[in-house]
């Protein structure tokens, strides 16, 4: 199914101008254009490279916070976000740091976020898991699970009211679908046919709680029925399948036909966060899922089509690694915010003076 909307890439340093001619697409009857397939692949590779590097930085104690890696889930996150326009909105969860890379938030600023530096998108305020980026419409929700979905409905409502042909892609885990306001949001989106794609990254676990203790349905997408919207379940480790399903959903949303609930079944390789050894899982389960790693899977597929070589991969990796090193250097050289900046951006007006120098009343004369 062809999308009606011209795709604008926001990928800052796309390294995919490879040796493969786009014209080959027709002859090979590939599911997607060669360029699209290669971009999907290289984004996944880049996201993986960045997250694995961040995990090393954490273990080296080079930043103070925590990190929620989506390693293993790249096919889902790359697939659902690749076709977004800069004006579209991403409503991310705590495990969607890499959607920033997809939308085009500059990597040095993202690393500065991890390090809590002044040069980060929010000048060191929120933890890396919850940062947004206003220039590219990545919202900054609170950490409350599923809340971003609810905020996303309002942005979608504004798009609809203004007849803007933009969409909101909201991402959350399967755990979020147990919350009351997840349902409020999906109900509202369905009711108003909002231009939204509600993506559930079903990675099987909400911290230590398996999906079987989360809900009695087998496919989360069944919940869509309750709200009168289409629900689709896809293999979240197959980037082509995710991309195609997302493209259908995004097109539907853009054309005013309303939201889609898109469940992507996938897996997170590591703990809930960097401080979680994930002992609650069977090693066998982890091994099985690692066997379904979306990246080598895509490599095999591309190689069969004659549009992947190890050299190309190594070149991409080199480029990504250099970019990350630069970003780290930028972050580590960046200053921390001044302590008093904690008093800034509370309201549209300044409260520094009021807080730092409250008026002390003069004693009454003659006393």
């Amino acid at each position, binding site marked *: 199914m062809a999308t009606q909307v011209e795709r604008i890439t926001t990928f800052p340093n796309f390294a995919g101008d490879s040796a493969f001619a786009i014209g080959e697409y027709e002859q090979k009857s590939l599911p997607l254009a060669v360029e699209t397939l290669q971009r999907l692949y290289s984004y996944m590779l880049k996201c993986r490279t960045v997250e694995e590097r961040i995990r090393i930085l954490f273990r080296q104690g080079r930043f103070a916070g925590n990190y929620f890696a989506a390693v293993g889930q790249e096919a889902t996150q790359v697939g659902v976000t690749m076709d977004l326009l800069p004006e579209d*909105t991403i409503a991310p969860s705590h495990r969607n740091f890499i959607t920033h890379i997809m939308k085009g938030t500059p990597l040095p600023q993202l690393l500065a976020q991890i390090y809590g530096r002044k040069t980060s*998108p*929010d*000048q060191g*305020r*929120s933890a890396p898991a*919850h940062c*947004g980026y*206003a*220039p590219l419409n990545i*919202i*900054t*929700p*609170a*950490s*409350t699970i599923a*809340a971003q979905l*609810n*905020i*996303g*409905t*309002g*942005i*979608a*409502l*504004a*798009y609809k*009211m203004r007849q803007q042909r933009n969409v909101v892609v909201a991402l959350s885990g399967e755990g979020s679908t147990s919350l*009351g*306001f997840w349902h*409020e*949001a999906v*109900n*509202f989106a369905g*009711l108003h046919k909002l231009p939204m794609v509600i993506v559930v990254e079903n990675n099987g676990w909400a911290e230590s709680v398996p999906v079987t203790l989360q809900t009695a349905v087998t496919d989360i997408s069944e919940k869509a029925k309750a709200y009168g919207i289409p629900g689709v379940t896809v293999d979240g480790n197959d980037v082509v399948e995710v991309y195609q399903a997302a493209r259908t959903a995004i097109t539907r949303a853009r054309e005013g036909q309303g939201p889609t609930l898109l469940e992507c079944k996938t897996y997170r390789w590591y703990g809930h966060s960097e401080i979680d050894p994930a002992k609650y899982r069977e090693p066998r389960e982890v091994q099985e899922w690692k066997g379904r790693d979306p990246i080598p899977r895509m490599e095999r597929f591309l190689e069969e089509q004659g549009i992947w070589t190890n050299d190309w991969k190594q070149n991409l990796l080199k480029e990504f690694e250099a970019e990350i090193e630069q970003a780290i250097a930028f972050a580590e050289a960046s200053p921390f915010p001044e302590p008093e900046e904690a008093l*800034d*951006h*509370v*309201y*549209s007006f300044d*409260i520094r003076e*009021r807080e730092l120098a*409250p*008026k*002390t*009343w*003069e*004693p*009454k004369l003659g*006393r």
Partner: protein
Amino acid sequence: MPVMTYIDAINTALDEEMTRDEQVFIIGEDVGKMGGVFKATKGLQEKFGVDRVIDSPLAEGVIVSSSIGAAMAGMRPVAEIQFADFITPAMDAITQQAAKLRYRSAGTQTCPLTVRVCYGGGVGGGLYHSQTNTSWFIHTPGLVVVAPSTAYDAKGLLKSAIRDDNPVMFFEHKKLYRSVKEEVPDEDFTVPLMKAEVKKSGSDLTVISYGYTLQLSLQAAEKMKQQHGVDVEVVDLRTLVPLDKDTFLESVARTNRVVIVHEDNRTLGIGAEISAVIAEQAFDCLDAPITRVTAPDVPAVPFSAPLEHFYMPSVEKIVAAMERTIRY
């Protein structure tokens, strides 16, 4: 100048702001055809259409959170919470999202949202239709909390709230809706946020209040004049957060005596904060201990008339507190 009730003033403010600015829209339960259970939005859906006066599903969480999203996208939503008692499903949206959005994004994402909340007792509403829970919000920096006591202020402050770039919690006391009436200009005017007002000047004692109890305080001041010749100054906070400290500190510096009146529960109500501010910043000005007249610390406003009467601040209770303070 037309004479308006508090509720008419609110309706007029909404009408004028929606006419003035296309980005303003209303969302809430029963706000459409019905015009709201108290008729604050009466006639507005007819005038502005179903897309700008949205009858929401019965879900306070999404009423407020969709408004937040729309506000982030540059609209100016006015969300209605039918009864303050039912605001809890929206607490996450208000305290975690709206209040923190500007802060957490270092000013790059903002939330020009107005949440109109109908609150207050004294109408026999019972446990879940009478609550004054302004303290829940005054403890949340990032929110502006407004609670007008007169029809004039209701119109002027609501217009300011809608135009303000901060999330504003706008508390409307249901007992004031039809009990106060005054001349309110038909034309466009605003009352500034974050400014208290001396509603009646006086030299012997300052009473500080807001909302319905401000009206009670005015009546009590009148009684003090008649019965004791005591000249009471009445300060209306109007905005509870950020608090206009200077106006009441100046007043206390003049009168040297203070009574604080509010309908919210006593513990950590705004009276506690005002007392602390006066103690910290104007201790030398006091001739008598600070006195508070508040609702007691019970979990809800009871239904039965004598119980509710005991719960609510009243003119008699305020007069008694003023007498004690004067006699000290």
